[in-house]
């Protein structure tokens, strides 16, 4: 049953540089077909059974879309609980990247036990929020009992001791590349060690002129919702004015001083994307005004709803049409479809890879894939031009 999907990357290399990367996607876009004919409630209950990695974000997007289609507006307590659920999921994902994936790619020690403990604790927070039920109800009291979950002492201590090597509020003061280099050179913790290597030339590639998805721009979202409804296959190959866009932590943090400085100096490089993710993790844990985990809904037409969630990997959209109390059409546009578009940020950024042997092509391409973080498994082959 090959329905789980994945990405096949084929790098064409001329002996010195990557000429192009061909991306074949076996992603199961049509899983949302299963939702047709269900009641909105059945659809919302089925979504988490289908999608594993960002199951909370998927469920919340489904809920937002179906509510909007029925003309319902969730209250603040429900929205607050949903943001906490999505925030806990994003923190789990970012910790996985920073404690395990990046260290492994850079030949450093992966911190599996720390990640397992963090996932267990964040999982408990989510379980409490889910059991409370506020997230589903349009009314209800704020989920104050679970509030400290995403913030709270445990995560701050984890970041300070093992991820950043300094207190999160002190890290949040870093405003430019020089400050980042001082931190990375001086702190002894997972993200600092990885960042030092990326600053040392390892992360200085992967740039492209690909634009970014805007953050919480309702007018733009409305236009995307229209495209999703009228253009068959649009969710598999999304574009804006004919071009793909990049989505994710970098797209959301371009105005944060540190990210703005890195972006001005080295574009949307692997390093800039890495730093953007650390910025968002620190904001999540500090409970600051944040970009990751923002969410909302629109009703492009009567009986039609769009739910949007800024997930760990970028913008996730669910669009539903309801007729006679049943789902008539359902479409999901996942962030991976933007970033791994055949001419998107990965494909264009890979053309900056200079490498003298196939092993180096693989290593560099792995960095870029990791920086853009697909939500499905992937494999690559390198072939000579």
């Amino acid at each position, binding site marked *: *049953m090959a*329905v*789980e*999907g994945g990405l096949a990357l084929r790098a064409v290399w001329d002996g010195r540089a990557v000429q192009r990367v061909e991306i074949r996607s076996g*992603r*199961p*876009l*049509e*899983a949302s*077909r*299963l939702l047709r004919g269900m009641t909105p409630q059945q659809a919302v209950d*089925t979504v*988490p*059974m*289908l*999608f*594993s*990695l*960002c*199951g909370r974000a*998927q469920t919340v997007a489904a809920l937002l879309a179906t509510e909007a289609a029925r003309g319902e507006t969730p209250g603040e307590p429900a929205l607050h609980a949903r943001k906490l659920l999505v925030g806990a999921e994003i923190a789990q994902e970012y910790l996985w990247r920073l404690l395990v994936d990046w260290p492994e790619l850079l030949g450093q020690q992966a911190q*599996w036990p720390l*990640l*397992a403990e963090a*996932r*267990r604790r964040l*999982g408990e927070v989510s379980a409490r929020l889910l059991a409370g039920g506020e997230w589903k109800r349009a009314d209800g009291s704020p989920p104050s009992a679970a509030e400290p979950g995403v913030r709270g002492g445990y995560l701050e201590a984890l970041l300070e001791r093992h991820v950043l090597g300094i207190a999160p509020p002190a890290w949040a003061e870093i405003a430019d590349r020089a400050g980042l280099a001082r931190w990375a050179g001086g702190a002894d913790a997972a993200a600092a060690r990885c960042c030092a290597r990326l600053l040392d030339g390892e992360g200085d590639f992967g740039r492209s002129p690909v634009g970014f998805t805007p953050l919480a721009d309702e007018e733009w979202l409305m236009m995307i919702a229209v495209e999703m409804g009228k253009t068959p296959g649009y969710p598999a190959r999304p574009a804006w004015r004919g071009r793909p866009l990049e989505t994710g932590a970098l797209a959301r943090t371009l105005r944060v001083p540190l990210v703005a400085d890195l972006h001005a100096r080295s574009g949307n490089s692997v390093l800039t994307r890495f730093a953007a993710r650390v910025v968002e993790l620190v904001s999540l844990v500090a409970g600051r005004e944040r970009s990751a985990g923002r969410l909302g809904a629109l009703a492009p037409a009567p009986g039609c709803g769009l739910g949007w969630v800024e997930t760990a990997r970028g913008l996730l959209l669910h669009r539903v049409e309801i007729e006679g109390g049943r789902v008539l059409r359902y479409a*999901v546009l*996942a962030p*991976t*479809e933007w970033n791994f578009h055949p001419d998107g940020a990965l494909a264009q950024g890979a053309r900056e890879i200079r490498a003298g042997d196939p092993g180096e092509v693989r290593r560099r391409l792995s960095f870029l894939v990791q920086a853009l973080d697909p*939500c*499905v*498994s992937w494999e690559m082959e390198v072939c000579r031009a």
Partner: protein
Amino acid sequence: MCLAIPARVERLVEPESAVVDMGGVRKEISLALVDGVREGDYVIVHVGYALSRLDPEEAEGTLRLFAELAREGAA
């Protein structure tokens, strides 16, 4: 996007890995992120790691959905 296909744990290999059956395909996966997995349990797997454990009823419901999807895809 990521589909949550349940895999049945056939046997434990070491304390932290297991052989699972994913729709007829056997695969070795890591159990580093999930505690207390036993033979016969269902787990959700992503890129070679078990992410969570499912109760058997939930797993069977999900497997039925994917079987439906696979049939539709083949049709």
